[in-house]
């Protein structure tokens, strides 16, 4: 490794910062929760999960928290993905393949528009509480 100049250091910091931000549980404006129960995984949730992470990575988005969860009980619509974006109603999308996963990022998270024909449910707040 050659000695760094001031510019090198700044560039290095910028590139490394992204990875650190992804780790940070705070400062997340949106949450994407992928159902990864046996049913979800069998229906291809892993590909969806990977596609979402890759898309975020490509678009340099670090303020979105991607989490896995168990079965949401909507086994007929797996893979299911819950999306929580500030200022928007929380929705669950059903039958989310890799392509739709990417679309969730570009359309729902970035452009704040819901993908109407794939909304499968809204979380039943009365049951959760």
């Amino acid at each position, binding site marked *: *490794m*050659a*000695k*760094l*100049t*001031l510019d090198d*250091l*700044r560039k*290095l*910091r910028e590139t*490394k*910062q992204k*990875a*650190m931000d*992804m*780790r*940070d*549980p705070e400062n*997340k404006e949106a949450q994407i929760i*992928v159902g*990864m*129960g*046996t049913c979800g*995984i069998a229906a291809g949730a892993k590909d969806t*999960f*990977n596609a979402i*992470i*890759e898309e975020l*990575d490509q678009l340099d988005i670090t303020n979105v*928290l*991607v*989490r*896995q*969860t*168990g079965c949401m009980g909507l086994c007929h619509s797996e893979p299911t993905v819950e999306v929580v974006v500030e200022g928007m109603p929380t929705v669950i999308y059903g039958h989310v393949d890799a392509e739709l996963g990417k679309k969730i990022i570009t359309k729902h998270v970035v452009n704040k528009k819901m993908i109407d024909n794939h909304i499968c449910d809204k979380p039943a707040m009365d049951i959760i509480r």
Partner: protein
Amino acid sequence: MAYKQYILVCGGTACESNKGIELIETLKKELEDNGLIRDVQVVRTGCLGFCEKGPIVKILPEDTFYVEVRPEDAAEIVQEHIIKGRAVERLLYNKEQSKTNVGIKEIDFYQKQFRVVLRNCGVIDPDKIDEYIARDGYKGLEKVLFEMKPEDVIEEMNISGLRGRGGAGFPTGRKWSFAAMQPKGQKYMVCNADEGDPGAYMDRSTLEGDPHSILEAMTIAGYAIGADKGFVYIRAEYPLAIKRLENAIRQATDYGLLGDNILGSDFSFTIELRFGAGAFVCGEETALLASIEGKRGMPTPRPPFPAVKGLWGCPTVINNVETLANIPIIMLKGANWFNKIGTETTKGTKVFALTGKINNSGLIEVPMGTTLREIIFDIGGGIKDGKEFKAAQTGGPSGGMIPPQFLDTPIDYESLTRIGSIMGSGGLIVMDEDDCIPDIAKFYLQFIVEESCGKCAPCRIGGRKLLNYLIKICDGKGTAEDIQNMRDISEAMSRASLCGLGQTASNPVISSLRYFMDEYIEHIDDKKCRAGKCKKLLRYTIDETKCVGCTACARVCPVDAISGERKQAHVIDADKCIKCGQCFDVCKFQAVSRS
């Protein structure tokens, strides 16, 4: 390809010695076996502070907090949490909240804490300079080297109000300015990492968890005072901290953040390590410098102060690890950010090593002005086994015992001095009703007698005399006159000793006489130790009505002091009894009583 998840494993000494390394290896192997090694990164971090429940594992970004994780648990974490996304409930800290994914924020241990010094501990991998850089590491140095003159840096330190965290609380900016004022020439910057108080491990954890912050701070200080050479004086008993520091120095040198013309500027600075052999007195500035020079670690009279005439006669600034860890962030966020934290006279935060009879022992950081009650009961989770709080000792053997009536005192340098203790470096030992105050004072004096360098008479002879009186009192042979003599000796020691060690050595005695006189009087007049710690004052007797004659006590007694026929009540011969207490422990019928 970015990682999708991160498993952070605490790599502090406490967790590492509890199979932490094996845990990391097993986790990596499990990930490898499941083809996840490229998706999930295992990060060995510095101390997360919650040593009581170690080894700690934190999974990000979902922020799940697992405690007491064994290497055997690795497979389940990977299978359940990583692959299936279900938290491993039995390993969660708060099992009642398992449904809602307990993050670090919800744990009471962390709620009142505010992390400045420990900002990177438990977050970054201390062996990776890139992670430190990503967390704004070396950004303070950037600003200092390219936007500030040395006098600006010192002015910034003065405005910040940062005071030395090693114990006495001398303003850091002023210390720097003394050295900066000396004529140009060879100057040195020294980091005092000779943490020696019993029960204190704040500096070790900082060095282990965030070594680069110390290197950055020393470089900044070097620039401010005009030094081109730094030394870290560290105890040889801290092998892990040494390893990480050595690695950090190597990385920083490779990156050109240490060495000639740092970042292309015209400032050059190098750092070397010097190992101490674990003498308490070497934490004292002048003794520390003597030890670096290869001489016997003994203090010399001040003035001249090291800032004027220090290492090899050159102006030298000595700052403690915790003081230094504050500096990069002060430079980065500005003195006016820092001086809003804390109290009127004492700015910033303080790291404490909580130990003793407390539920959550561990490493904590709180803003100055937090009360002892908040630290012990809210963060520390209260006293073990629901016992009664008796006293807290801050400042190690140089500090005093703080009684319950001062639990609500907001902590800063002045308030602690007012109630007869000192801030010290940050060891905080909690005592409960089972601790005997004269016995604790005796323990600290034993430490002082062992560690006194013997150069000056007040410390060498005074310490020994104090210890003898305390032994006498604990043996039940003390007199009222002894108390007066102890007071006189204590005063002589604090006024006439050469260095801080002797000057403060009598603090445990003075403070305990002030607040716990009744316990001393009990030992002297009633020959009684209420905590049951002073063996010579104990009497073991057998209650005839409860004894069933099982002979268990007679068989366990090492000196055959217990006699009696089978199925008949036994008796203890008080003259033979050595008060080992084994009969008390072994009796199933509570027939043996201790008084």
